[in-house]
């Protein structure tokens, strides 16, 4: 058994991270889970939330906001196919709140269900992000 977990975070535009960590907390669709070395193989969709990368056990985690995606744990390690990632430091809460309000209006004005579903998806990640930043 290895004592570090190999992980990769890939966005459509590029390979973001390819390194080793002691533990990674992933915001799975059915609840957060912590990926440790030699975790059983699994696959899970990710809800908008924060991925926490603990490089050393008990250290301060590196926090990365993920808009959604897929996490796959294979014997080779953890792969996160992220839709889009944001560094939490870059977020402007006022700006975000305005965008949330705008999107809420858009949902009201949506022409059909398909359009509404698109806006609702946008809203979901923005609300999740606002929640995390505010706390």
């Amino acid at each position, binding site marked *: 058994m290895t004592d570090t977990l190999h992980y*990769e975070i*890939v*966005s*459509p*535009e*590029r*390979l973001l991270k390819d390194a080793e960590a002691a533990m990674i907390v992933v915001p*799975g*669709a*059915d609840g957060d*889970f912590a990926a440790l070395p030699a975790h*059983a*193989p*699994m*696959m*899970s*969709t990710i809800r908008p939330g924060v991925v926490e990368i603990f490089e050393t056990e008990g250290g301060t985690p590196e926090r990365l906001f993920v808009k*959604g*995606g*897929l996490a*796959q744990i*294979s*014997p*080779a390690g953890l*792969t996160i*196919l992220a*839709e*889009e990632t944001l560094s939490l430091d870059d977020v402007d809460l006022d700006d975000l709140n305005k965008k949330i309000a705008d999107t809420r209006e858009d949902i009201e004005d949506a022409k*059909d269900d*398909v*359009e509404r579903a*698109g806006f609702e998806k946008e809203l979901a990640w923005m609300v999740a992000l606002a929640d995390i930043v505010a706390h």
Partner: protein
Amino acid sequence: MPSLKDLKIRINSVKSTQKITKAMKMVAASKLKRAQEAAEAARPYAERMEKVLTGLGASVAGQPGASPLLIGTGKDDVELVIVASSERGLCGGFNTNIVKAARIHLRELIAAGKTVKILCIGKKGFNVLRREFGDKIIDVKDMSGIKKLGFADAQTIAQEVLAMYERGEYDVATLFYAKFQSALVQLTTKQQLIPTPLPEAANENEAADELGGAAYDYEPDETAILDDLLPRNVAVQIYRGLLENAASEQGARMTAMDNATRNAGDMIDSLSITYNRTRQANITKELIEIISGAEAL
């Protein structure tokens, strides 16, 4: 016979054209490098996505309730043809080749009695296609304002394409673009986007191998993961197509401008020879006049 002055003017104008084509070639070369890097950077995501889809798709495809993005609508009466071209010309046969391939496909479909809808990305392809298929073009995406193509741009297009699919406006979607091979070679490619074609795994074992040969736990479950993944795959495929297209465009432009520079060089050479000959002939003529004048005395 053009006068010496006319020849000089022509030589100078060809020279300045050559300077322009040379500069354009160098600009295309540096843009090509960037476009290639972007295409390469996008590759890991697409590869991993493909692996997951192959593994998952094989196990879900047979089940009832599988996503229509995977199994289709059961018809192929209406086809959406997405044609990616460039925003700017002067890139050799790049746009012509894409449009030609698309046109052949479109004519086949129409001949088979199917309805076609065309979505143009980039206005160069639109300008040619509208002559023959003007009434079938539903939209043109203007990419000229985009400096660096990002995933968000592809996603906007993908969302529209998917929304139309969900509203039942078409059954099959195909994407035409030029795949980048080298600065000299670009392959016009036709790719089916919807329903998502699964890379064929020879058998169940191979499908399992794609996932590392382990039994997986799925959260929430396979179908839900696939439902989440398939729309994203469409965006990824469009993004990849557009990136390849961008690299191809710059490659084609570089080659075209290189040829133009060389042609201009040839032209300058031959014009210079004509210029020198004319000059010599003029001198000879003047000499003959002086000599024959002297003889006459």
